């Protein structure tokens, strides 16, 4: 790994880093990745991966759930916390 790799990952993760942070992260990541590389030595005969073996998915209607007679979440609290809004809608910058 080198600084360019750290910059690339930070860009993918949408985090701006200072030069000092980059070199510190490079050092830490080298040692951590060196350690978790041990996973290569684990022998498994399982064919498939990514399968959630503990639970199966559960579906429900995409409607607000009523808990004790009221909607489970507060629309008022949600809209109050928008960093920017107009007429009750969330306002964001142009994407293009």
């Amino acid at each position: 790994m080198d600084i360019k790799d750290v910059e690339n990952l930070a860009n993918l993760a949408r985090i701006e880093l200072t030069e000092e942070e980059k070199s510190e992260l490079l050092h830490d990541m080298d040692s951590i990745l060196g350690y978790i590389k041990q996973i290569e030595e684990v022998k498994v005969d399982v064919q498939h991966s990514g399968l959630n073996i503990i639970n199966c998915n559960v579906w429900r209607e995409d409607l607000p759930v009523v808990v004790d007679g009221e909607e489970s979440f507060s629309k008022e609290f949600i809209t109050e916390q928008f960093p920017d809004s107009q007429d009750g809608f969330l306002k964001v910058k142009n994407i293009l």
Partner: protein
Amino acid sequence: MIDLKNLTIEKARTSLDAKEFSAVDLAKTYLMEIEKKNKEFNAYLEVYDDVLEQAKTADEMIAKEESYPLLGIPLAVKDVILIKGKHVSAASKILENYIATYNATVITKLKKQGAVFLGRTNMDEFALGSSTENSAYGVTKNPHDNSRVPGGTSGGSAAVVAGDMALAALGSDTGGSIRLPSSFCGVVGLKPTYGRVSRYGLMAAVSSFDVIGPITKTTKDAQIIFDVIKGNDILDSTSIADKKYLGTPKKDKRVIGVPWELINQEGINLKVKENFKDAVKKLENLGYEVRDIKLPNCLALYYIINFAEVSTNLARFDGVRYGIHKDGQNLLKDYLLTRRDGFGKETKRRILLGTYVLSAGYYDAYYGKAQKARIALRKEFQELFSEIDLILTPTSPIPAWKIGEKSDPLSMYLVDIFTVTANIVGVPAISVPSGFVAIEDKNLPLGIQFMASHGAEDLLFEVGKNFEAMV
């Protein structure tokens, strides 16, 4: 004056029902204790301003002869569980102004009982760490030695219970975050079976590992809270059906497996080892059969999945809908600046590591391989639990360390060696106090950890109570 030192939920229930003291008296006593101690220990990030109102409501319920196990019981809540209308920040700057828009299911259940919430407790930012040193709001100090960490990530919750600033607390456990601080602070911590307690309203760190659980003074108290908060929840699709696991049949002789090879390796503190061997002897004297078993070191597997899911789960914090917002020239710059200023060091590190293990070219070698190893490990555990009833280890390989002593992140990860396994396979585990070691004129608590098969919390409570009676 109420004797907080020796008070348990069980005793408080009796006294409240007998009207020896009121819920308001009890809440006031705790508030006074918090006022005296919190400045020093930094265990609460916020003490709620409506504590006495909540206690008054509880007293009104008691006056109507209502009685629930947690009615009027003062609890602390880790700063990662949502209470509608209250601040909740996951000890992160990115959520410093955030107000919860709904109640977590565990909160709804506790409110129905008339429990009193004292405040929200400090933790490692987004539950990433092992010491509570990663909080954006300063470290919490260990009540047994204020120069040492309380453990993490639920360090504030463990410290308030140990320091008599709450009768019990809620924590969350991703890889040991309830058990490790419980052992460092000399209290009991239960990590329930994955899916047995709803995660709705718990900010996700690692969705496939996370679970909410109690931190208490006794095993009986942990059982009381667990019985209230458990249960299937329509709002959490990963919560399991109530009847999925039936109770464990009574047996005359229970078998405990001990992974001696893992415990005897280098890096395990000698005093911890000695204390552990004593605990094993005590359990043998209690009539348990102890057998040598093999358990692998699962840290690499654990951290790969941890990094991957953390990087995904924390993608939602971008300054667009809630939390802090840093303004740049365009939307992309907004993201970059908000995340730069909002996230702490360890959080950034894990997001980058997760982005790495999930990126094209490395996915199969890391994340794909880890998922396969996880399935294999779960099978191994199922076979193991057909022969034994419990697995026993120390909770932590070392006692609480000095604040600032572990500056290398990898050395901190290694402390989770005994706790991560339960999260990988989803089994329940409990940490119970196993005595003290004298280090630099201070007595530091140690803990031992029992794991049981899926849904067998009752076995953990049984052995925890038996062991407690011996210590």
